[in-house]
């Protein structure tokens, strides 16, 4: 194996471990941090099913964002939909051997890359030209978009221009990462840049705003059932506090009369 292949193989595992460990730690942190009070935001679901439906609408349709701002919604949704399709299409590289038929369904969506790139350009445009959004943007916010743009564009260049890489080789390399049969990778610059940035993306996932992915599911204003009167909701720390001070409180209350 060439030096560069070895380097990229190593980078893959390093970034994967950072991603998995980092995300596991973050999700664990969210999991153990209690939400001591009922704070769902209207329009609130009164049942658990309602919560699931609400969450599904948020994840699939970006419902709240749609209410808030149509342009941001349009670009944001295009980008994410494109990203999703592109990611699914990437499974074929990692799948050792023939792809199960179900994945063939998305193969026609190779133009998803355009949706993704157009979405990203739109989001970038808003960040640069809408004064309010410019005001709240840090350098990392631009960099994140630039990085995704470069990933998307370099990918599209390989798909749609004559700068094709050797797909067979890519498949061997990528599936080799999964099956530990390490192989050489193509060394065209488009491909190396594409791959390197994906590794960076994986590594920064747990320490950046990409935490919106787990965060979305843990958001108490969105995932709570509005049933405070029917069912007592109490956090472990509050319960402990209550039990420890129970007697004292009962005794002190009313003493000031």
């Amino acid at each position: 194996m060439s030096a560069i292949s070895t380097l990229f193989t190593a980078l893959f595992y390093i970034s994967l471990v950072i991603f998995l460990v980092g995300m596991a730690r973050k999700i664990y942190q969210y999991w153990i941090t209690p939400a001591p009070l009922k704070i769902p935001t209207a329009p609130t679901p009164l049942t658990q099913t309602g919560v699931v439906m609400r969450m599904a609408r948020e994840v699939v349709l970006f419902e709240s964002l749609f209410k808030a701002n149509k342009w941001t919604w349009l670009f944001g949704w295009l980008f994410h939909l494109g990203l999703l399709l592109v990611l699914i299409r990437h499974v074929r590289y990692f799948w050792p051997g023939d792809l199960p038929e179900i994945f063939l369904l998305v193969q026609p969506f190779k133009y998803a890359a355009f949706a993704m790139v157009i979405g990203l350009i739109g989001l970038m445009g808003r960040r640069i030209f809408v004064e309010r959004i410019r005001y709240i943007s840090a350098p990392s916010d631009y960099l994140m978009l630039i990085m995704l743009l470069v990933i998307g564009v370099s990918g599209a260049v390989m798909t749609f221009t004559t700068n094709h890489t050797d797909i067979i080789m890519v498949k061997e390399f990528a599936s080799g990462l999964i099956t530990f049969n390490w192989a050489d990778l193509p060394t065209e610059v488009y491909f190396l840049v594409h791959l390197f940035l994906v590794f960076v993306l994986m590594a920064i996932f747990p320490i950046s705003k990409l935490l919106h992915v787990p965060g979305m599911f843990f958001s108490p204003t969105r995932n709570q059932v509005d049933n405070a009167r029917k069912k007592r909701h109490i956090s472990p720390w509050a319960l402990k506090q209550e039990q420890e001070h129970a007697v004292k409180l009962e005794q002190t209350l009313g003493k000031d009369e």
Partner: protein
Amino acid sequence: MAAKEFDIPVLPTYIEIPKINEGAMEGDGPFKASKEFQNPLGFPGEKVDNWQEVAIAKMGELKSKYRSVQVFLDSCVKCGACTDKCHYFLGSSDPKNMPVARQDLFRSVYRRHFTFAGKHFPKLVGAKELDDKMLDDWYNYFHQCSQCRRCSVFCPYGIDTAEISMAAREVLDAVGVGQKYCNQILGKAITIGNNLGLPEPALRDTLLDLEEEIEEETGVAIKYPLDVKGAEILLITPSADFFAEPHIDGLIGYGKVFHQDGVSWTMSSYASEGANFGMFIGSYDIMRKAALRIRKAALDLEVSRVMVGECGHAWRVAYSFWNTLTGVGAGATDEFGLKLQNQLDSRYPQPQHIIEYTHDLIQRDKLKFDKSANDDRTVTFHDSCNVARATNMGGIPNGQFILPREVIKAVCNNYVDMERTTIKESTFCCGGGAGILTDDLMEIRIKGAMPRMQALKEVEKTDGVNTLVAICAICKSQFSKVLPKFDFDPYMIVSAHQLVSEAIVIDKPQTDDSEAEVAEESVAE
């Protein structure tokens, strides 16, 4: 500071998103609490020497106790969807009043001290140190947030700036920089029992006067009972209802409804306050302390129902938090909660809102109205933010929007809603919530009221609206103050139960008898 000159916003024909104007609302913030108000709540009397250390430690504590704080600080993608949703930004154009920018005052410090990226690459991710300037900004801008949660409705992750505001105020209190208005009031509420510091004899006198006045006016002895042991209903209402205009007319309305229903009810001198400012300063413990007085009153008076009067955040605390804090509700598993819940009548929701109660009576045809009594009015309803975005009524989806409107429509003939994007879950705050209702914050109160006033102006023009109904004590006080600044009649703001009071047909004692006779006769037949 308080006397600073400022322009009252001119109402536009529709709400435009302003160009940002940095530093427009820069300032020292509201009056700070001195020792005498800080210490009774367990807060340091002045800014402590090692305040940075204390503040960072407090932030660490809060983010481990509140999932909202932890998740919200991490998840924001700076998409900007919330930037034009805050009434304080729309009215003041100060960019730090954009919800995400307000959160960022807190988030930038969180990043600096608690995240890898912020510790090692602060410039890259906009992480900042908590220095004097930053603390001043916290104090100023977290007291320009009414915790109305409008931003949370529109954020793709439901990020609720109110949660961050509460956390920031908690940190500020912990380092000895508290707000005078809130903390002074809380001191009274948890020692005397109400925000006004009204002791039992004064309260009793007020209620007696009220009874006399009403009897003179209506010829019926309608009672406003205090501390009656064994009454069925304990009414917890904001203390403003006892004396402030227009609140008191709402209280009169509650009494008439109880009277018509023939139910026994009482108020408590020990727990004579529905408002709970503990929520505003973010303190679980103080909020609980205030709520515990109500539990004690309910137990001592041996009531079987607890009901809440017209007050926005009081209803939020009651509906969403009381069961958690003190077990007023159902489904308790612990000892004291079970005790209380055994005493309370489980056929009714506990606690119940006065609107739910009146609505139920209307549904069951228990009340008679002469709607024409309100014919001089064309009415619109202001959804108070805490009721609209943080509670429910009637146990049906969106009941908190439906029930008040149905009650109003049952007692008056002319009703219109304001523009769709300014009501229900998208309602604009009155501008006075969460400890902003103080004269030293008049500038932000007036500017923050602009979006609501604009929507009101529209229905005034198109439908001739001359009455604004709210079911929140803060809204009522705030509107009384700001309406005239925007060329409205300050008396156009009324309680929902004032309209009920004006239209309700009270049975006179003699008609009572004759009706009873008629009833007996029909039974005999």
